[in-house]
């Protein structure tokens, strides 16, 4: 039975700058190969609601797909679940989430945006602060309608495209827990590290394809997992978060699809939470 794993190497910068020495990538290839061998012996997870630790890449996808899209003001006008939730508790107090413009945590963000395609200077857009939904993402038109300030989220892809409300670098902020302590705290659950794709809808219900993960039994990592899927409802699942790691992982290899493609950055720490696992 074939098993597959895909990893993206590189990041912000041109190809010749990032890959001047191919040998620099070899450690990542070795790591991928090791994971692939583990996956080849992998097991299918048991379906149902489970305690999971989401890896940083998945947390970033959660921030983007399941929360970020619901607060895009054009989707709020279209009936997104986030519309009536502004000012209300949507997550554990451990959770804060921001759409960063060009810098985050003292470094350049993966895809810096300094001015958007309506000419608005780009600034950070705070979305969730300590579990409370505090902001939406706007273009100039929706900002006027909602009495908010545009923060540089109007972005167009091709020369002939109209600017749409888009995210830039969307991340859940780091917490104080160590990953090793988080794993040790799980009696029976899963540590989910890699994803292939994700989708969410305006109700906040999301689905992420999981391409790599591990069982956790009695606080220790166990067997690798075969491909599976997780799902949940963002504003319910985020309330189950009870540990947040102290390290943020960024990912910026994909394109967000919303009429036009758009490069975006997404990131986050590890989260301990409850999730619905797919399985057979």
């Amino acid at each position, binding site marked *: 039975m074939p098993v597959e794993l895909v990893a993206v190497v590189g990041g912000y910068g041109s190809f010749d700058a990032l890959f001047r020495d191919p040998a620099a990538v070899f450690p990542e290839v070795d790591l991928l190969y090791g994971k692939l061998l583990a996956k080849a012996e992998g097991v299918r997870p048991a379906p149902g609601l489970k305690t999971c630790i989401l890896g940083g890449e998945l947390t970033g996808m959660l921030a983007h797909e399941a929360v970020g899209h619901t607060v895009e003001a054009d989707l709020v006008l279209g009936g997104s679940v986030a519309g009536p939730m502004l000012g209300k508790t949507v997550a554990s107090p451990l959770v804060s989430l921001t759409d960063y413009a060009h810098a985050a945590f003292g470094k350049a963000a993966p895809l810096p945006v300094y001015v958007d395609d309506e000419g608005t200077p780009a600034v950070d857009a705070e979305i969730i602060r300590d579990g409370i939904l505090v902001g939406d993402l706007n273009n100039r038109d929706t900002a006027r309608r909602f009495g908010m300030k545009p923060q540089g989220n109007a972005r167009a892809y091709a020369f002939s495209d109209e600017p749409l409300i888009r995210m830039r670098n969307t991340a859940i902020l780091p917490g104080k827990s160590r990953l090793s302590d988080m794993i040790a705290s799980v009696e029976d659950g899963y540590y989910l590290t890699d994803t292939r794709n994700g989708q969410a*809808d305006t109700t906040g219900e999301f*689905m992420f394809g999981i391409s790599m993960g591990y069982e956790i039994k009695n606080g220790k990592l166990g067997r690798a997992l075969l491909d599976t899927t997780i799902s949940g409802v963002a504003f319910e699942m985020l309330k189950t978060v009870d540990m947040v790691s102290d390290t943020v992982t960024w990912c910026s290899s994909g394109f967000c699809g919303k009429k036009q493609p758009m490069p975006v950055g997404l990131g986050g720490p590890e989260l301990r939470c409850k999730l619905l696992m797919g399985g057979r």
Partner: protein
Amino acid sequence: MTDLKRLAAECLAKLKDAGADTAQARLSLSEKREFNIDGGEFSLFRTTFNRTMTLTAFRETRTGSVTLNSFEPADIERAVSDCMAGVESDKPDPARGIAENQGERELTYGAPEPDAEKFFAATKTLKEDIETRYPTIMMEQMINSHDKTETVYADTNGNLFRLVYGSYGVGLMFSAHRGDKSSSFMGCGYATTDLDTPLIEQGDVARVLSDTEKQIDTVPVEGSFVGTVVLAPDCLCELLGCAIGSFATGTALIDGTSVWRDKLGKAVASPDFTLSLAPHDPAVVLPQQLTSDGYLTEDFDLIRDGVLESFVAGIYVSNKAGVPRSKNTATGWLVMPAGEKTLDELIAGIDDGLLVYRFSGGQPAGNGDFSGVAKNSFRIKDGKIADAVSETMISGNLAEMLFHFAGASSERVKDGYNVLPFAAFSGITVSGK
């Protein structure tokens, strides 16, 4: 007016002069007239123009290819130079090639000339029809457009084809709302040449809108069970497309990882299951006329009575994998025969299962394992549609699923691209909280 045939001939001559043994040129001019509705209000009308040129050169066993969006002489000169530089740096691979001579052909199809006024009126009526007939529906976005394309394909084997085509496209994204409660968002759409039939009566729009209104209140499935899942045509199209991509074409065949690799002429599905790749079905609005190799296409059965009749292979996949070349290389244009039972009768025979309108799932694994959320879906209990469900996942294996085909509806949805019924498959794991 740009003479694409003349320009294509000039490009081929330049590639030959630059050292190509054989070459292809594909040039297109396109026009898009687009209406958008956002948040229930008209937000955009625009006309955009585009041009693309793809040049491909072959020398011995090396290939180079360049795509540009300019027809300016200086840009073409640079593209020819870049194309040949690609040839120089390419890894030799004798599997590539282009179609043998089939002559010249001019084809005009679909509705290449737009009636923008009539289309706008039809779009406005569609908006009003939805507001009147489906009061809980909130239109997040409607993107309606007319797209016209003129394409010329020419190669040094003497093939010269000019295609002029166009159609009206209707795309809706919406959800149903009552107070603070809402359904999941849902989308549907189709391509058409018909502006006389109300847009709401085409494709599967009316049924999908009506069923979305019933999805505001949902009930999660408790626990898990193995049951029969009825896939709505759009959802069926997505999963069949995944099966074709994973088992019947491309790298899966070349690498030998496809589970159908040795199944040509053998059973890969229930004997009741037939699936054609039929771009020339009368209900298809814009057929694939040409493969990228330059072959004029024909319809073929991928699976007939459960037996794998062909792979989906152009010249490269055919040579690389050692399988016969197929009559088209479409992974869309799916056509399935209608069943004998209506959808209601199909459901009446199911004790426990789901009717799934949308599958939100990860890319199925190479072996066909899939799992994902059953969105915009209903529980089937004792032969009847019961509650709409939420937080419910379905899991299975695409290759096994085709052996568990349990019937198709007599109703088929024609969306201009595919002609598909509702189809039932047993043995699918359904899991909830």
